[in-house]
């Protein structure tokens, strides 16, 4: 009986202590730069950042980590022993951009990623609504990236018009471009990938996407999305950006897009 009275007491006391221990800001979420941050926040609207922070802490934090390093508790199992893993926002390397390889994404790029999600790895947050998606993007930019994001891109996004509409001729030309630019080295002649072993920036094994399966595309599957992927590349992975190869003849990138679409039977 005594033994039990003791252990019972222990449980009660410990549970109470735990409850007291719990603080408003929460464990591991304190911001060392709070004071300093407040000044900057005023500029963009402290309320936006505050809401963004709330959203981040309620959901993103589990994967992206309290410091935005991509080391959230749930991060490591997303692709165990392989790519992808949430990226380190503080390192400033982003896969999904409309800017040149090596540059930071625009705010719209962050918003697109959050809105659409990343099939297989990150849910879509479309139902947050545009305003909240903007707020959480602002929070990421201020808190983790800590640099001004570009507001425009030097890559030229041209329309697919005239001879560059989706047609058999365009697909045939696209196949040539595919060979000329060496896409096959990684993606294989049939687009399904080669056996070569590649690593991402973190040293994790990564497979080139199977171009015949649109459901594996992380950067979107629309014509415009694929155009953007080819131009910008996916930083932090072996997939290079090809904007310089298309400089001055941006239209011909559409041929390549059409070739990929044709490989998917679209």
């Amino acid at each position, binding site marked *: 009986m005594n033994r039990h009275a003791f252990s019972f007491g222990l449980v009660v006391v410990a549970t109470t202590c735990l409850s007291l221990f719990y603080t408003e800001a929460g464990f591991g*979420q304190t911001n060392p730069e709070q004071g300093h941050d407040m000044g900057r926040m005023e500029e963009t609207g402290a309320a936006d950042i505050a*809401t963004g922070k709330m959203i981040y802490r309620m959901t993103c934090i589990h994967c992206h980590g309290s410091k935005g390093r991509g080391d959230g508790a749930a991060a490591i199992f997303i692709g165990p022993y392989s790519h992808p893993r949430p990226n380190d926002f503080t390192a400033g390397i982003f896969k999904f951009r409309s800017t040149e390889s090596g540059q930071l994404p625009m705010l719209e790029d962050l918003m697109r990623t959050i809105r659409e999600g990343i099939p297989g790895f990150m849910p879509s947050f*479309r139902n947050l609504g545009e305003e909240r998606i903007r707020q959480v993007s602002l929070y990421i930019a201020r808190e983790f990236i800590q640099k001004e994001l570009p507001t425009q891109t030097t890559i030229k996004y041209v329309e697919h018009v005239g001879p560059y509409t989706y047609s058999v001729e365009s697909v045939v030309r696209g196949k040539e471009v595919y060979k000329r630019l060496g896409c096959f080295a990684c993606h294989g002649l049939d687009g399904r990938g080669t056996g070569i072993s590649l690593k991402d920036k973190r040293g994790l094994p990564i497979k080139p996407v199977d171009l015949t399966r649109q459901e594996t595309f992380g950067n979107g599957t629309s014509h415009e999305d694929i155009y953007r992927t080819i131009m910008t590349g996916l930083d932090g992975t072996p997939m290079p950006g090809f904007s310089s190869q298309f400089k001055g003849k941006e239209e011909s990138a559409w041929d390549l897009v059409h070739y990929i679409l044709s490989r998917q039977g679209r």
Partner: protein
Amino acid sequence: MRPVSCRWNRNEILCGLFLGVIMITLFPSSCFAIPAFARKYDLSCTSCHTNPPRLNAFGEAFHMAGFQIPTVQEGETKKKRNIGRVWSETDFLNIFSFRANGNLVESFQGSNPDETNLTFPRDLEIYLAGTYTDEISYFIELDREAGAVQGIPGGFFEERSEFGIGKEFFLMVDLQPLLKAPYAKSGETMPGMAHGEGGGGGIMFMGPMVMIGKIDPSTNFSYPTNRQVILNIPGRVDSGILQRFGLTPYAFASKFFGVKTADGNSVEVTKEVLYNTPGDFGIDLHAMMGNLLLQGGAMQGLQAGNRDVNSKKDPYLMARLNFGQEAYTSGSISGLINWGNDTAMVDTSLVNWLRYGFSGNLKYKYLDLYGAFIWDTIRNLPVGISSPFDRTANGFTIEGDYLATDRLLLSIRYDQLSAGGFISQKADGKAIAAQARFYMRDNFSFYLRDSYNLEGVGTNALRNFRNFVALGVDFDF
């Protein structure tokens, strides 16, 4: 040595194999636990799970939010949520999952009698789970369990194969929108978010969430009973007598020899009971504030099912504190108090049951460590019972799972039981289990496991084996 036996008839096995093959060939890549959710949100299983069915921090938040992505009601998938349109093909696959798991070959050594069984996976489960409205989610499990040991009156047991509403069957209702102040949904605030004082300093709220039906309250405990990597070993019954107890995590077991349910059925000493029952009728309320989760509720009574055997309920309170949100680390510690109100019977008198304990969980990189220590006391024991009775008992279970490669999961578990009950009947138990699980594909794995009785073989049904080996399979769609 008993001849190799089989617990399923041939038609059942053929039918099951056929189903399995069809499922695997038709739906090659799928995943564990509730694949329907993965399909619905277009995510891999490991977005929510570490080693299914174990949840990672995001999976816990998803569960806590009533099977929804926190902050987002229904994500992209609002159109898919209506249970009324269940049978339209793709929508259905977003709420439907199937699981078959259990041993294919199992062998007991050093037991009386030794036995080797060829079995078809004991547990077949069908889940329907999803959200009905933004605030109401449902979870229905239909389950076919072969050879489950069940207590019957007179100190006897039987093995049953049952098909029906399985371990869990409940509605989850988010009460937050009803509680307008101080953190109701408004144009300004997020659902589940208090107004912050001075920019972003507010507390996060989730819930309060009610679960009603056949629930497993321990689903919120740091060591949830319903998420086990090393499966339970079934017991063995011969002509009404329990020859060998099953092997379950001892911390959660009933622990008392000779205790009956309030309506007189025998209770297996290793049966998971009270707060840690994997599914019994009750009502549960839980809410999360910052990193603190509070849970309270009441169960119908020890193994009482949906019958209101003594018109009293078994209330419980649980507090859990989460920690870690970086460096690939997360974890929690929980404290539990559970009161069984006239819930059990010793001889012919109803007795109260006090259960309390701790559990903890630490996840670091590919390691998942969790354990529980639970004490039980029988209160108001009648004077003049038939023979001396030990009113106290405790159990301890600790498990570690380590994902050694992307395909290989290694697990080890230690169980210790300091039993109570009639002194003439009781015995303590200590067992260790090791398991290697190999994933052929995301939704299909084989495991090889070994359990070793550290107490040594004895005449008591708790110790009626020295070593147990099994080869089993786990398939999910």
